[in-house]
């Protein structure tokens, strides 16, 4: 059997892409998932705050996932669970997805299109190189989230958290609710990497101190973690001698960033963007390999699942267009990140494929107050968006109407942060 669409991962991006591509007319759609159930990371994100954009109500992660799983089920989209994807091989018009699972062993699945929705994984302790010993009690925040919320294990009682990403903040509250004492959240940067609302409702509500410009300089303990040395850092992010402080603890959680999981993408030779660590994509999330699309955290790490779902709809539409031969491949515009902006997605725009507007997602390099995000083609200002506050942790969502873009010939669209003028 040759599938129309195979979706690599049954998390929020994969589920929303499957629903969309099926609704757009694709017949044989298949979801591949390595876990024993669909839903991905949402299953362990039991906190509320999801779905305000998509469903206009506040849901928990499992509730948000279930809404999509129910749609996948009612549309009759099959999925292979407990199935590990080994490789994706380009065979021209078809792609072969090599998979393995306990029941069927090894097999290759042929498909006309592929949607990459593998998501991301946490940066581990080895990647940040903290000096000291390697006792038990050091975990990534997401691992502990799964232990506590799904498996029912509490990994410790006296907790320090390094990194103020959203998972770290959410876990500071979660561990506190379950009876642990969270002593501090240390953040290397002078600003938090999490959403402001999470600082308020996860740290401030429980009196947990957030120590900005602080890092851990030593891990103590031979068998079990006994404590960490915390020090203030200077503007070059180097520990300042004399500021060290020993904090006793039995558990250290790391919330130090997420990395898109792109081994399959790289092996297939798809063009990557070093700024996002994801594939270079177009307005309908088409990659450099015809018939292969990508969306969600595998393209760039999002802070809201609602925007993952929004992006997945684009990829679903793109795959459906490709199947009917209606996908245009002529690149009209190349968005670029200018001053103050670290990346822009999509990195290509084929205007013919765009609907009423094109949404550009971007992140700023540092904290800005009362600035404007301006979009230029050549020297012409084509769109701008005023922002009271811009944070690296909060993705900017910049929409430009198709009619506006259509006034310009092909070229670069440069996004920059500039002073607000009244």
């Amino acid at each position: 059997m040759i599938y129309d669409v195979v979706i690599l991962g049954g998390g929020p991006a994969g589920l929303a892409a499957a629903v969309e591509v099926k609704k757009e007319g694709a017949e044989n759609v298949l979801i591949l998932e390595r876990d024993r159930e669909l839903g991905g990371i949402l299953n362990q994100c039991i906190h509320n705050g999801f779905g305000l954009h998509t469903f206009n109500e506040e849901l928990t992660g499992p509730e948000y996932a279930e809404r999509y799983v129910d749609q996948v089920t009612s549309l009759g989209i099959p999925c292979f669970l407990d199935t590990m994807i080994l490789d994706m091989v380009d065979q021209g018009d078809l792609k072969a997805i090599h998979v393995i699972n306990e029941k069927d062993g090894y097999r290759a699945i042929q498909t006309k299109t592929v949607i990459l929705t593998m998501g991301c994984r946490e940066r581990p302790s080895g990647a940040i190189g903290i000096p000291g010993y390697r006792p038990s009690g050091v975990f990534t925040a997401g691992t502990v989230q799964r232990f506590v919320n799904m498996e029912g294990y509490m990994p410790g009682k006296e907790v320090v958290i390094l990194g103020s990403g959203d998972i770290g903040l959410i876990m500071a509250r979660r561990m506190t609710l379950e009876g642990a004492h969270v002593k501090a959240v240390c953040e290397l940067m002078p600003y938090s990497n999490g959403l402001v609302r999470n600082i308020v409702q996860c740290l401030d509500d429980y009196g947990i101190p957030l120590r900005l410009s602080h890092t851990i300089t030593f891990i103590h303990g031979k068998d079990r973690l006994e404590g960490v040395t915390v020090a203030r850092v200077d503007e070059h992010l180097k520990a300042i001698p004399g500021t060290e402080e020993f904090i006793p603890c039995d558990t250290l959680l790391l919330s130090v960033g997420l990395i898109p999981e792109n081994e399959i993408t790289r092996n297939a030779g798809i063009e990557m963007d070093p700024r996002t660590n994801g594939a270079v994509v177009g307005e309908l999330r088409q990659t450099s390999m015809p018939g292969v699309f990508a969306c969600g955290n595998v393209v760039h790490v999002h802070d809201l699942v609602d925007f993952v779902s929004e992006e997945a709809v684009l990829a679903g539409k793109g795959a459906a267009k490709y199947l009917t031969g209606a996908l245009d491949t002529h690149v009209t515009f190349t968005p670029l990140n200018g001053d103050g902006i670290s990346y822009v997605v999509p990195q290509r725009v084929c205007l013919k494929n765009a609907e009423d507007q094109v949404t550009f997602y971007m992140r700023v390099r540092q904290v800005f107050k009362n600035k404007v995000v301006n979009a230029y083609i050549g020297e012409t200002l084509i769109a701008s968006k005023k922002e009271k506050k811009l944070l690296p942790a909060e993705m900017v969502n910049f929409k430009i109407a198709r009619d506006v873009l259509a006034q310009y010939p092909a070229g670069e669209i440069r996004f920059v942060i500039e002073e607000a003028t009244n």
Partner: protein
Amino acid sequence: MKKDMTCIVCPIGCQMTIEEKEDSTYEVTGYTCKRGSKYAINEMTNPTRVIPTTVVIYNAMLPRLPVKTAEPIPKGQIFEAMAAINQVVVEAPIKTGDIVLKNLLGLGIDVVSTRTMNKC
């Protein structure tokens, strides 16, 4: 009295200022939707939070079932609520929205399941 606060209703996190007037009414500025002004006034008079947590479940694929308070509960009673919810033990099958604890702490608010778990 004037107070600055960050709205937590949605991830936009509006920076708001609330001021108590002499006639004990409040003036809120900086919000961008009406949920924001309501949150700000609640935060001054009776701050509340939804509590998402888990309860023990038997005969399911996993040993824990995610639950939440169906409505926000007073902030001051969060740990009391956790102690009550931690006594709950349920058995699969459970559907999303099923009540796992009625009338939490006599508040008239139920604790409900936030996912479906089949028997296995």
